[in-house]
């Protein structure tokens, strides 16, 4: 029984680590601030959940309950940060237009959305 739990736990942790690794690779390979932000924040969220789930199977129940809080606050805080950084990046012109297929925010043309001359 513990053998099965160990294997499941190990699989969850490895999958979580793989997800985080892919996020890191994306951070290096993707072309723009916005896309890198996706790679930096999102696969980590899933990766963290998987690692937490794997950890929860190996620790006493009262510690596992605290891990729920970690997951919960990740869910609450991660979108706020990625939205703030993404918006700042866009407004400050850190997004090169050629990496976007369609940019309907620039099409409105009313905001300070144009990349400023560097």
């Amino acid at each position, binding site marked *: 029984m513990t053998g099965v739990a160990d294997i499941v736990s190990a699989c969850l942790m490895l999958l979580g680590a793989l997800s985080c690794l892919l996020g890191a690779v994306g951070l290096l390979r993707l072309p723009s601030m916005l896309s890198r932000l996706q790679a930096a924040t999102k696969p980590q969220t899933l990766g963290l959940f998987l690692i937490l789930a794997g950890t929860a199977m190996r620790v006493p129940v009262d510690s596992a309950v605290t891990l729920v809080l970690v997951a919960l606050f990740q869910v609450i805080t*991660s979108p706020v940060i990625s*939205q703030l950084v993404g918006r700042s990046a866009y407004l400050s012109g850190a997004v090169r237009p050629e990496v976007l297929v369609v940019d*309907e925010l620039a099409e409105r043309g009313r905001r300070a959305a144009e990349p400023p001359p560097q």
Partner: protein
Amino acid sequence: MSDGPRPRAGRAGWRDQLPRICWLTLVWVLLWGTFTVQTIVGGVLVALAVTRLFPMPPATDPIPVRPLRVLGLVGFLVYDLVVSTVGVSWQVLRYGPRARGTILEVPLYSSSDRVATLLASAVTLSPGTAVLHFAADQGVWYAYSLGPRDEADVERTRRQVLDVQRRVLAAFGTPEEQARAAAGEGER
């Protein structure tokens, strides 16, 4: 300024504050990780102190909450987290530096700030998409999505983002907002 709103918040207090007190107590108990009388009583005391020290303005626009739909939304977000993580990983490995993205203008079907906040969190939580800007006065918001490479992809992404908005409104929207969302989707 602190003279004005305080007494009103105090009177509106109990019913508005109760969810916050329950939530803060739960966080406290989870932090300790033990379900004993001490931690629960301690949690209630801490929650009371926090709500007293940092009063929130009373809610002006009550939003309907449908527990079953909320569960459905949570289930969808978990499913979406897994599927979209695979999608983002595919973009990273397959296209890498040649990956493309798009910024979409999406109609906003809710006038409530709190529903808009929930919507932004739901969309931004999903891998590959993020909300960039809300223009509530113009009834639109802007979402970034990683992955679309041509017009067909862009339209598919638009439908996905609208689908998330529909699910959020199904959980927290008023019937009128849901009708507008359904009508808006019918046009497309």
